[in-house]
């Protein structure tokens, strides 16, 4: 209970399998960062976890309720999708911001209009404009407003800061944290701007080629992941029995990203250099191409 569970989620588009049996549990009252490369399956996973699209196999439960086609479960979730307006005024682009927000006000049972009004003011958003006339950053603002004002227990953001300027990004993080502190809602934020948001993620999920390869507390992950370089034999000794990523050999020297055991420490010696890594570097080491 008090969790959102994805169990064995498989998603196929024709013969192309995008998600390969994803198992993940999100606990209530945490901010998760969902990090993955383009095409890793982040949006697909979120759209299935929110009950917007069906999985090919597997199921999603929220607080013990099946999410698919179940209004009681859907009422607990908001996935404010990234708006891609490509068809001008003929599609969703023809809607005015205020019309889109009106739909959100009607559909989300706990919608908080005061949050909507505050964000419109903070972002200086013109709600009379059509979605097709908005810049990418402004479209992100609209999705942020809907997600935060929805007051849904589980709220998913897909690239919320894409196109936002520094001031708007700062406003978003500030209001998100305020809302989190006040409501204890669960937020999942899918983003490529990792370092900027790293501090607010209590846990991170790394999604690589349709698999969750890591789910861990952000501080613990950053605390136990180091970049080790130096004499090849010494680095090999350190690597022995440990999870290593992105191993590079140049002549007699070797460098690798090493995940230490919790509480384990590694110090610089004459033969090796140990450097701390930030979340982005860890992600690149784990999901980037092997050297």
């Amino acid at each position, binding site marked *: 209970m008090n969790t959102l569970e994805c169990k064995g989620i498989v998603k196929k588009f024709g013969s192309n399998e995008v998600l390969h049996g994803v198992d993940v549990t999100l606990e209530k009252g945490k901010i998760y960062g969902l990090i993955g490369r383009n095409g890793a399956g982040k949006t697909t996973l979120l759209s299935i976890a929110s009950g917007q699209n069906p999985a090919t196999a597997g199921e999603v439960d929220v607080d013990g309720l099946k999410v698919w086609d179940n209004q009681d479960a859907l009422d607990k979730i908001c996935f404010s999708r990234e708006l891609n307006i*490509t068809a001008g005024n003929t*599609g*969703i682009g023809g809607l005015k911001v205020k019309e889109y927000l009106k739909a959100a006000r009607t*559909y*989300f*049972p706990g919608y908080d209009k005061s949050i909507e009004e505050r964000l419109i003011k903070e972002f200086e958003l013109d709600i009379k404009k059509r979605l097709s006339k908005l810049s990418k950053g402004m479209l992100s603002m609209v999705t942020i407003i809907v997600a935060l004002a929805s007051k849904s227990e589980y709220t998913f953001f897909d690239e919320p800061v894409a196109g936002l300027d520094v001031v708007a990004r700062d406003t978003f993080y500030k209001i998100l944290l305020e809302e989190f502190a006040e409501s204890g809602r669960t937020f999942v934020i899918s983003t490529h701007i990792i370092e900027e948001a790293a501090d607010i993620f209590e846990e991170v999920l790394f999604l690589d080629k349709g698999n969750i390869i890591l789910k861990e507390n952000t501080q613990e992950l950053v605390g136990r992941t180091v970049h080790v370089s130096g004499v090849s034999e010494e680095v090999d000794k350190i690597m022995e029995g440990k999870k290593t990523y992105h191993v590079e050999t140049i002549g007699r020297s070797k460098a690798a990203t090493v995940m230490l055991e919790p509480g384990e420490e590694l110090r610089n010696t004459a033969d090796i250099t140990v450097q701390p890594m930030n979340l982005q570097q860890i992600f690149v080491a784990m999901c980037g191409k092997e050297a």
Partner: protein
Amino acid sequence: MTGFDRNLKYWFYYVSKSMLAIYAMIIGIVAVMSLLDGSNFIDTFTENIVLYLTMASAMSVIVFGFTNITVMFPVTVSMSSRRRTSLVAMNVAQQVIGLLSFTISFICALIKWPVLKEMLSLVIPAFLGVIGILFFLGNIVAFLSERFGRTVGMILYIVFVFFVVFLCTIGIGIVKNGKTFSMVMANPQAFAILFCAAGIILDVLGIVLVSAGLNKKEIKYC
């Protein structure tokens, strides 16, 4: 409010607004035409009000079919609505507002041509049958737009309409001199009721057609 209530509330708001926009467009066109040919707008409008209201109502059915399923339906699903609930509420709103609009034009027709009042038992079922067929066509547009996208969907719809008109023309040609035609002419009341029933059945079939496969459809924004 339940999910269905929320859907009804939103779809009635959206469909009514779209309906009013279509009325405004028709009025605008008549006003511009009157301005261009120097006629009196009020006179022209009053003279042809049945035609304009019927046009607006028929247009609305096709416009709803063309846009609601591809534009607003994905938005409602992305706002945590069940698909089937949204689809049912969408159809209820479209059909109630459409029927209301057709009824207004029908009442105007009764006022304009009092002779129709004497044939109400014939005219009402025929009127309902025509509306049922129009709703069916609206759902065919919705089905094609949802499956093939708006542009290809509209092209396929036009092909479909031509095909149906072709079949009807041939069908009428075949039965015109036959026994069936004589039977129909002998009992127009029964024919009107049959026509009404056919319209309603087609309307239901149209809804079923749109809902089929919708549960597996990938919701994307366009």
